[in-house]
């Protein structure tokens, strides 16, 4: 028999100890409601249920290197539906955070989007729905950017027709300085700064 997994509870122990909400995984009964309800399941290499199964089996590489933990958009569908009330989102974010700390690098697109998102929130205090995609699309170079823009043209036109996208640039929110202070502190904490 090839490809045999040796069960090793030490990784599960590591997750329980180090990951935010990690010990909630114990309560998973593998019903799969999280995986079934996740809107991003098609894009995930392992749906949340399987992530939990992999942790239990001790597959460290697969879990921490997985895209799924980075892809979670916090829509809360799984957390609402979980019959065991596991905060699946907290677990996924906890795992993502832990993976980054352990030196795992998310895939390029995810990293680019995350970076631009953060920068824009820092600059404006909100998301500009025209500007953010543009920046993400062109982060890979001019040709890539044009191709991506053309791909999303239909959606863009529809959004404009339905007045869901303003043509003028977004303005900064009031009190942007206070928000930046908060974000600065959050970043310090995230990087392992002082936790008061």
């Amino acid at each position, binding site marked *: 028999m090839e490809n045999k997994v040796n069960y090793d509870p030490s990784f599960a122990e590591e997750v329980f100890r180090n990951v935010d909400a990690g010990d909630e995984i*114990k309560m998973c009964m593998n019903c799969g409601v999280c995986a079934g309800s996740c809107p991003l399941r098609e894009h995930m290499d392992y749906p949340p249920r399987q992530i939990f199964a992999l942790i239990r*089996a001790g597959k460290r590489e697969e879990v921490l290197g997985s895209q799924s933990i980075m892809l979670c958009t916090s829509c809360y569908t799984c957390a609402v539906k979980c019959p065991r009330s596991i905060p699946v989102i907290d677990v996924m974010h906890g795992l993502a955070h832990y993976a980054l700390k352990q030196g795992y690098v998310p895939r390029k697109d995810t990293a680019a989007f995350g970076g631009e998102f953060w920068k824009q929130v820092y600059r404006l205090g909100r998301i500009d729905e025209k500007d953010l995609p543009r920046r993400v699309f062109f982060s890979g170079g001019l040709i890539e950017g044009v191709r991506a823009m053309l791909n999303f043209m239909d959606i863009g036109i529809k959004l404009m027709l339905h007045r869901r996208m303003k043509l003028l640039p977004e303005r900064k929110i009031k009190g942007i300085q206070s928000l930046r202070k908060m974000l600065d502190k959050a970043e310090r904490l995230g990087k392992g700064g002082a936790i008061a």
Partner: protein
Amino acid sequence: MDKKTAVYICTGCGIGDALNIEQLKEEGTADFGIDVIKDHPFLCGQEGVDLIKQDIEGEGVNTVVIAACSHRVNYDAFNFGRDVIVQRVNLREQVAWSQAPKEEDTQMLAQDNLKMGCSQAKDTDWVQPYKAEEPYSKDILVVGGGLAGMTAALEAAKAGYRAVIVEKEDKLGGFLGRMKSTVTLPYKALSETGAAQLIQKVEDEPKIKVYTSASVEKVSGGPGLFSVDIKANGNSATERIGAIVQATGWVPYDANKLGHLGYGKFKDVVTNVEMEEMAAAGKITRPSDGGDVKNVLFIQCAGSRDPEHLPYCSSVCCMVSMKQATYVKEQNPEAVNYILYKDVRTVGQSEDFYRKAQNDGNVFIRGAATQLGEAGGKLFVEADDELLGEKIKIEDLDMVVLAVGMVPASRPETTPRIKAPADAAGADENGMIEVAPDSGFFANSALHLAYRQGPELPTLKYGFPDSHFICFPYETRRTGIYTAGCLRRPMETAKAIEDAVGAAMKAIQCTEATAEGKAVHPRAGDMTFPEFNMQRCTQCKRCTEECPFGAINEDEKGNPLPNPTRCRRCGVCMGACPERIISFKNYSVGMIGNMIKSVHVPEEDEEKPRVICLICENDALPALDMAGIKRMKWSPYIRFVPMRCLGSMNLVWIADSLSRGIDGILLFGCRHGDDYQCHFVKGSELANTRLGKVSETLDRLALESDRVRFEEVGITDYHRIPGIIEEFMKKIEEVGPNPYKGW
């Protein structure tokens, strides 16, 4: 007593609007010499009931025909004591609510219904309840002194009844006495078993007599009149008993048959029962070297839910494994338990204990073990992990526990063989034949009944005693004998206690009802019983063989020896008897025959076919009422004749009907087979079997077999009824009118 019959027609609930009441009064009662005929717009109201009471007192009326609603409603309003025969005729659900008003066909239907009712009232006799010559006992015998048995005895004692416990071991306790802890309500943590206290309570109870190291040698008689021979420690005793609770419990599935899981091959592979006993004795250690236990793997469904072994789920093994995993953790907090499961089945609130076991850090793996082996003095297990979709290997295991399921104590190791009757198919060269589980010869010895149909309770296919699982779970196929606990179905302690209380209550009810000459479930309170006209008996033994409850014994010549206290009053014997010598005071072959004869059959050129529907009054008739209540419509050409059970159907009714020109016969009975719904277990099946023989009758009369049809109708099938009737009427139209009309 001379009969003085009165007919009362209610004109409320739309009956008066649908029918010509004056015509009904005249034509519906003409042939029966009715003394008083009245109608009232609200018969079940005080004024209506008073009207009837005045006639009973003033006019000396002693037989009352009430043409109004279904007999299933207002039975308390129309109860005038045992001295007044009450016959109900349905003009509401079956006529006014389901037929077109003021039509000729509706009027004819009402008239036929009234005529059938009058005919039935004429043939009904006053009921004299059965009273045995010997005094009745109300003591309860409990066979088996485990949790269920002790609880049943204590409950009976608390209710003021004397109880006798027969326990085969030298002390009470059963499996409960061998356990370390239990998991029970509220399923948050382990609980004490409480076995010692329970045993003490039983021993301190003056109303309970305990025989240990004892067995039941013989049970004869019937409810209220059981004579039970008990052998205890070599001494014999005889007890007079009213009703019996059998709580002989369970045995674990034989793990020696689970060689593929390493049992017998590796010393450190044990069953959950062995694990429990080890834990109860003190410390859990490796059986091979007595070493400490750190890593334990539990294999769930070991042999269970496996067609090769135990095809069913025992519903407790998941909890047991979690409980034992808790023992391991208590002993060594560093220990790791792996639970390899097919599905975790923690029923109801016990889900809370599953949560606890997860929270404790036990590792639950969904999958099946494929291989078990030993490496370096430790065990390893290979399995298919269904959630990873990969093969896995768990190493360094100190112990493997097989969670084996529960087998009822009644189930024999191998199917017993008995001497086959002369004409039986499938007998071997020695004339022996395998017995079917639903025979009284199948189950392991526990009661030694001196019954013609075998010494033990008939069982279902996996060896659990047969009962009507949904409606009356404690009843068995032997009246007055009730099962409780894991004998009835696999269950945990909390459920076993509940079960024992229920069975004790049924046993008490049985002794009380029997002493008053009343039937037990499902015809609870019925005081009639079958009477045999023995002069005409031909010793054919059909009644003794077919009685679903083994109520009838036999003498050496084959004459039936009825035991009225064992009888459930279903009338299956009446339907079986080819000589028609069995009858009840208010139910007999002649009576139903006369009812059918009172149905008017129009001439062929009138083009009004007539169909008789023999309908089971337990499920199909309520369903028909429901269809009426929902104002569903069906053909006015059908006449319903209620049966106590379709098993009481005698073929002579079919032959008589067809030879009188009735165009078709419809039989509404319960579902039969493995998931039967018949209140009398075998009734609808027997009716169906008998129907197989009706083709002879049809051939003799040169009639088409399409004219007779059996339909299974459950209580929830009311919506199907109009469709079934319509389809059958279409078929009758196709076949054409019965050529015997007008003869």
